[in-house]
């Protein structure tokens, strides 16, 4: 055996030993993930194929009702996402530039609801948006309207409630990106002749796109699978797919079909994520 062979063997041995060590170190995490995520996933999958194999999927993907609900879900998630972006972007901008105290106060206003139970907040919205809710009573009382507005048990109510819950998921990634932004860039653009609007459209906004991608993805993906808010504020009239799944399990005890719907939802979510990544990444090769 030559010297070189010895060295090669030594490094091979070392490499394998290192691999073995890291495998050992990863074992608890792997076990944890397998038991709590992978196993249920596999059970779900096998359940969805019960009976005459693909019957549940055929129903989920061809029955007009379920396809419609899936499309509605994607639509509502899109509304929520757009509303979160339109509201969240200026809020994140304010938080990123506000001087110390104001930034902290603003942050508390964003965080407090974030830490409060979704259920509590949703019931709160029912009090505000209901037929005899605060908004309608105020408007009726002041004579601005004659009949109460339908703010609940429809898409409007669901979107309002969901936006409120999901807004922080849009704000935080945007805030992170904006805080890191080099102020010199806007100054440089201005010095080179750009108006305030041009600085925003050509420099500032493109540079916040990574935050937009993160925020939009988070909000959209969470919105697709939302349950509590559409169930309560929708009053059963806004069927989103998560509501439907719950119904299958709870009311019809049809576990197989519920599993199939869940996997359709999971696939749709991953597809949306892939598309968003592709579309927004296209503009961000610089990151």
């Amino acid at each position, binding site marked *: 055996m030559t010297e070189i062979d010895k060295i090669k063997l030594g490094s091979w041995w070392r490499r394998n030993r290192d691999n073995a060590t890291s495998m050992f170190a990863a074992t608890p995490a792997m076990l944890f993930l397998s038991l709590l995520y992978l196993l249920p996933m596999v059970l779900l999958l096998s359940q969805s194929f019960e009976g005459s194999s693909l019957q549940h999927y055929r129903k989920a993907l061809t029955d007009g009702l379920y396809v419609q609900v899936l499309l509605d879900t994607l639509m509502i998630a899109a509304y929520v996402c757009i509303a979160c972006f339109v509201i969240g972007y200026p809020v994140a901008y304010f938080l990123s530039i506000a001087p110390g105290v104001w930034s902290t106060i603003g942050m508390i206003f964003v965080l407090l609801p974030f830490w409060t139970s979704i259920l509590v907040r949703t019931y709160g919205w029912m009090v505000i948006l209901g037929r005899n809710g605060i908004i309608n009573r105020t408007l009726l009382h002041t004579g601005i309207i004659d009949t109460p507005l339908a703010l609940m048990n429809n898409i409007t109510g669901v979107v309002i409630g969901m936006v409120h819950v999901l807004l922080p998921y849009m704000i935080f990634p945007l805030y992170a990106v904006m805080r890191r932004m080099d102020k010199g860039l806007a100054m440089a653009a201005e*010095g080179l002749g750009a108006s305030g609007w041009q600085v925003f459209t050509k420099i500032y906004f493109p540079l916040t796109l990574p935050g937009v991608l993160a925020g939009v993805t988070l909000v959209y993906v969470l919105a697709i699978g939302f349950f509590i808010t559409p169930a309560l504020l929708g009053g059963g009239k806004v069927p989103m797919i998560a509501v439907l799944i719950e119904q299958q399990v709870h009311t019809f005890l049809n576990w197989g079909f519920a599993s199939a719907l869940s996997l359709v939802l999971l696939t749709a979510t991953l597809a949306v994520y892939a598309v968003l990544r592709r579309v927004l990444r296209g503009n961000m090769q610089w990151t």
Partner: protein
Amino acid sequence: MGALATAKVMKSLPEIALSVVSASRRYGSVIALDGIDLDVRKGEMLTLLGPSGSGKTTLLKVIAGFEVPDEGEILIDTKNVTLTPPSKREIGMVFQNYALFPHLTVSQNVAFPLQMRKISKFDIAARVSQILSMVDLAGYGERLPRQLSGGQQQRVALARAIVFGPNLLLLDEPFGALDRKLREQMQLEVRRLQQKLGLTAVFVTHDQEEALILSDRIAVMDAGKISQLDTPQAIYHRPANRFVADFIGESNLFRATVIAGGYAELENGINVKLSSEIPSTGTVIGLVIRPERLRQAEQGSIESKINGLITEIVFLGETIKYRIRDELGFEVLVRWPFLSNEKTLQLGEQVSISWNHEDMHLVKWL
């Protein structure tokens, strides 16, 4: 004759590209600019040199329009632009960290100021490729800033700042992030380009060596004021005051008292002849002499002014620096060319130091 003579004088005077007229700026109780008056001539490179906190960056921001002075005016080509926003001042600026737009390619970065001026696509493309080859970056147009080295990023920043033909080029410590060799190369390159294009430039730095290399004139700033405004040679050899003498290069500053007969007495009791402008007897003055102007004298000779021991030796390559101290604790710094090891003095060796009185420069002590 009077009118004609005046006209002639007017014509021979260089045109003023930028005037700062008694500009002041305060931040709370801190006075950043204290009544600055400054004229920058067309085509010259003027350096604002000073330690941090001297107000040089604030002055640059006021000129660029990122700060509005509390008092005073800014005139560019005799037009008052004090309240004009930066985007309307037609000033090219190179920032300390270059501030290249990370999401735009080199070409797009350089094209940016042209796009803001609604120039046709065709002209932009031509202008961009012309300027990129001028800064030696032809073929780099499609790269992103992060794919470039520090020196290349610097060139892009420079190209972007001059591509639209600005009235004025501002440089805010642009060489700070580069290593020594590259820095020297870029300094000369910037200087060459500035002279070639006849650009009027204001350059901010705290590096006095850089200022001496690059400038037509230097404004040394201290505590929001211009301490001295002159050519690099004059600043170096005839500092106006103690601050400038101390800040620019290394120097020996002696406290002395004027005595009768055109002499001054140093603190070690030696009398030195003053060459010119002799203040009244009894005045306390400062005498500045550069370390390289001192020479070794015959020990005990009439011309020897300081006799002491070598207490420190610093080898600097082509020169060698000695600190010499006499028994009264009077210290002097000398710098001589390094000739050979044999001719190098040793630590603790006794030396006598002398100088020509015309190499000595008188400054106010206060």
